[in-house]
C-alpha cells in the first residue's frame, strides 16, 4: 500500500515536472535569439513594369493679367469685384486724372485761338494781295506816263518801290498764315496726346476673364506698375508640379498624367504634361513641369490648391522583378536573400527602374524563378535559421 502511494507521488511529481521541462525547452529554443526567424518569400518573375513619377504642385493660372496704371496716381474708381467675369475691353476701373481734363479743355481753347489766328492771317494775305495788285497797276501806269514825258523819273521810282513793298508784305502775310496753321497743328497734337493719356487712366480688360484680385480701392495711391485688378483666363489653368530629380529621367511633354486635388482626394482627374521646364530648382533638387487638365475643367478649382500628380512613363521591357522590400544592404552591397535547398544566400544585385507600387527591376544578380526573402522578423545573416510563413506574426491580414 505504501509502495503504491510512493509510486503515485512519483508519478504526480513527474506529471508536474515533465510539462515544466517541455515548456522550458520551448521557451529556450522557440523564442529569443535561438528561435528560427519567420520570413515570407516570393518568386522573382520576369515582367514589364510601368515606372511612374510622383510630384506635388499647385494649381496656377497660365495667364495672369495684372492691370494697373503706368504712372503713379490715385485710384478714382474700381468697377469690378473678385469673382466677376469680364469681357475684353470692359472698363474695370479708372485712375484719378487730376488736371488732365482741364488741360484738354485748355488745349481745345488754344486750338480755337490758333484757328482764329489762321483766319486773321488769311485776311492779311487778302489785304497784302490787294495792295500788291494796286501797286502793280500804279507802277505800270507811271511807266507809260514817263514814256510820254508826263511824270518825272523820281515819281516812277517811287511807284516801283511801293510795288516791291507790297510784294514783300504779301510774302510776310503768307508766312504768317503758314505759321498759324502749324501752331494749330501743334496744339491739336498736344490735345490728342492729352486725350490718349486720359484714356490710359482707364483700366481695361485685355481678355474675357475672371477677376481674381482687387488690390486697391478708390482713393488709394498706387505706383507705376502696381496692379489694381488681376484677371485670369479661366479656361487656361495648369498645375505647376515639382518632381524629385531622382528618377525623373523620361519626364517629357505629352505624357499622360493623373491629378488629385487636395480638396477631392480620391477623385483623380486626367491631364497631360504640357512642358518640362528647362530650368530645374537647384536648391530643392526638383525638376519642374507644367501639367494641364485634359479635358479642361468645367468648374474652377481654387488657384493655389495643392495637387498630387502621377505621370506614367512608357512601359519597360521585361526583366526579373521583385518587391523593393526584398532588397537589403549587407556590408555596403545591395542584394537579396535567395532561399535555396542549401539555406540562405545573399546575392548582390544591380537595381533598375521601379514603379510606384514598389516593384523593382533587377538587372543583375538573380534569375526569374528564384525564391527570395521579402519580409523578415529580424535582420538576417547567412547562418540564420528561417521559417517560411504566409504572413509575419503581428501583421494584420
Amino acid at each position, binding site marked *: 500500500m505504501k509502495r503504491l502511494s*510512493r509510486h503515485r*507521488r*512519483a508519478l*504526480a*511529481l513527474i506529471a*508536474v*515536472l515533465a510539462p*515544466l*521541462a517541455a*515548456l*522550458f525547452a520551448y*521557451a*529556450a529554443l522557440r*523564442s*529569443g*535569439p*535561438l528561435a528560427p526567424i519567420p520570413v515570407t518569400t516570393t518568386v522573382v518573375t520576369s515582367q514589364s513594369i510601368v515606372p511612374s513619377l*510622383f*510630384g*506635388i504642385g499647385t494649381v496656377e493660372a497660365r495667364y495672369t493679367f495684372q492691370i494697373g496704371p503706368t504712372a503713379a496716381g490715385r485710384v478714382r474708381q474700381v468697377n469690378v469685384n473678385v469673382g466677376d467675369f469680364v469681357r475684353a475691353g470692359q472698363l474695370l476701373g479708372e485712375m484719378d486724372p487730376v488736371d488732365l481734363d482741364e488741360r484738354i479743355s485748355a488745349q481745345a481753347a488754344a486750338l480755337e485761338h490758333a484757328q482764329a489766328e489762321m483766319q486773321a492771317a488769311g485776311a492779311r494775305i487778302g489785304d497784302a494781295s490787294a495792295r500788291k495788285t494796286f501797286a502793280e497797276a500804279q507802277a505800270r501806269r507811271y511807266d507809260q506816263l514817263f514814256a510820254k514825258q508826263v511824270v518825272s523819273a523820281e515819281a516812277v521810282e517811287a511807284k516801283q518801290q511801293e510795288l516791291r513793298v507790297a510784294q514783300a508784305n504779301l510774302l510776310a502775310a503768307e508766312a504768317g498764315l503758314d505759321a498759324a496753321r502749324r501752331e494749330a497743328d501743334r496744339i491739336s497734337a498736344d490735345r490728342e496726346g492729352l486725350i490718349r493719356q486720359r484714356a490710359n487712366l482707364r483700366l481695361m480688360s485685355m481678355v474675357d476673364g475672371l477677376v481674381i484680385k482687387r488690390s486697391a480701392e478708390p482713393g488709394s*495711391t498706387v*505706383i507705376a*506698375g*502696381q496692379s489694381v485688378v488681376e484677371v485670369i483666363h479661366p479656361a487656361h489653368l495648369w498645375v505647376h508640379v515639382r*518632381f*524629385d530629380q*531622382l528618377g525623373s529621367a523620361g519626364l517629357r511633354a505629352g505624357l499622360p498624367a493623373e491629378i488629385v486635388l487636395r480638396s477631392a*482626394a480620391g477623385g483623380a482627374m486626367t491631364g497631360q504634361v504640357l512642358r518640362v521646364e528647362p530650368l530645374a530648382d537647384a*536648391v*530643392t533638387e526638383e525638376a519642374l513641369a507644367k501639367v494641364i487638365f485634359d479635358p479642361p475643367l468645367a468648374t474652377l478649382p481654387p488657384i493655389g490648391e495643392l495637387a*498630387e500628380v502621377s505621370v506614367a512613363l512608357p512601359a519597360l521591357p521585361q526583366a526579373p522583378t521583385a*518587391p*523593393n*522590400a526584398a*532588397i*537589403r*544592404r549587407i*556590408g*555596403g552591397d*545591395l542584394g537579396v536573400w535567395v532561399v535555396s535547398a542549401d539555406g540562405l544566400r545573399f546575392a548582390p544585385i544591380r*537595381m533598375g527602374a*521601379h*514603379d*510606384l*507600387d*514598389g516593384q523593382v527591376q533587377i538587372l543583375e544578380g538573380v534569375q526569374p524563378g528564384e525564391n527570395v526573402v*521579402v*519580409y*523578415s*522578423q*529580424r*535582420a*538576417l545573416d547567412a547562418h540564420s535559421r528561417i521559417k517560411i510563413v504566409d*504572413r*509575419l506574426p*503581428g*501583421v*494584420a491580414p
Partner: protein
Amino acid sequence: MISLAGRDILHAWGKFVFTGFGLGLLIGVTLSMAGIYRGMVEDAKVLLDNSGADLWVVQQDTLGPYAEPSSIYDDLYRGILGVAGVTSAANATYLTMQVRGADSDVRAMVVGIAPGAPGKPGQPPYLIAGRYITRSHYEAIADLATGFNIGDRIQIRRNHYTVVGLTRRMVSSSGDPMVFIPLKDAQEAQFLKDNDAIVRQRRRTAANPAFNRPAVPGLLDAVIASQSANPYVNAVLVQLAPDHDAQVVAETIRRWKRLQVYTRTQMEEILVGKLIATSSRQIGMFLVILAVVSAAIVAFIIYTLTMGKIREIAVLKLIGTRNRTIAAMIMQQAVGLGVIGFVVGKIAATFWAPHFPKYVLLLPGDAMRGFIVVVLICVLSSLVAIRIALKVDPAEAIGG
C-alpha cells in the same frame, strides 16, 4: 534505486513544488528586470543599427541628433558626398511627436528620410509588410508598435499620409516607435505651425512697415515665403566604403567642413553613456537590489526547509546514517529547488516579456549567468543548513 533526497521530496512533494514555483516567480521577476535593462541598452543600439549609417554629421558643438537638437543646412550633404571614402550621404530629420491615426494617437518618433533606393542611409533595413516609400510625398512606413496597418491614413501636423510599409523594432532611444516619412514632408512637419499661427504671422509681418513697403510691391510676399521655408535638417547620415577608416573620414569632415562628426562607437557612447545613463543606472540599481533580495529569500527558504526536517535528520543520525549522506540529501534538495525555481522563472519571464510596453531583451547569456548564480546561492545556503543539521544531537529524535 531512489536517493534519500528523492524519497524526502516525494514525502512532501506538493510543498516542495510549490516552494519551487514561488521561488521561480521571484527569479522570473529578476530575469525580467535584467531583460528590461538589456532592452533599454538594446533600444539605443538598434536606433544606430537601423539608421544604416557609419558616420553622423551634425551641427558643431552639439551631441545631435538623438541626444541634443542639431540643425544644419539641407544642402551640406553634397559637399560631404565629395569627401574621399564616402559612398553615400543622406539628410535625416528626427522629431518626437504625437501621430494621429483614425481614432487614436500614438507617441512616435517621426523620421524624415531622403527618397531613394532601400539600403540608403536612414531607410529602415528591413520590412515586415508592405513596401518602401516610392513617392516623394505623403507616404509613411510605420512601426508595428504604433498599431497602424498598411493602408491606414495617419495625420502628422496638417498633412495626411498613407501607411505603405510596416517595420519591427524601429524605435527611438526612449522606446517610441518610429514613423518614416519623406524628408521634405518631415522638414515641413518639423517647422510648420498650425494654420492659425501662420495667419497670425502673416498679419504681423504685413503690419511691419519695414516689410510692407508701398514702393516695393513684391517685398511682403517674398518675406512671407522666406519665413515659411525650412532649409534645415538634423543630421547627415554617411555610409563609408569598406576600405576607409571611419576616424580618418570623420576627421576630414570635421576639419574641412566645419561640422561635428560622430562615429558608431562615439554615438553608442553618447546614447548609452549619456542619453539613457541615468535611467539605465536606475534600473541597474534596482536589478542589483532585487538580485540580493532574491538570493536572501532563496537562502532563507532552504534554511527553513532544513530546519523543518531537523527531527527526521536526528532520527537518521540515530540510526547511524553517515554525515556525507545527510549533507548530500540537503544539498541535492537545495539544488533541486533552485533548478525548479530557475526553470519556472525562465518560463515566466519568456511568456510575460512580450507584454511589456517597452522592449525586454532576454539574453541566453543572462539566463546562463542567472542559472549559475541561483545554483551557487542554493549551494551556499545549503552549506549553512548542513552545518546546523550535522551539529544536531541524535538524542533530539527521542527527547523532543
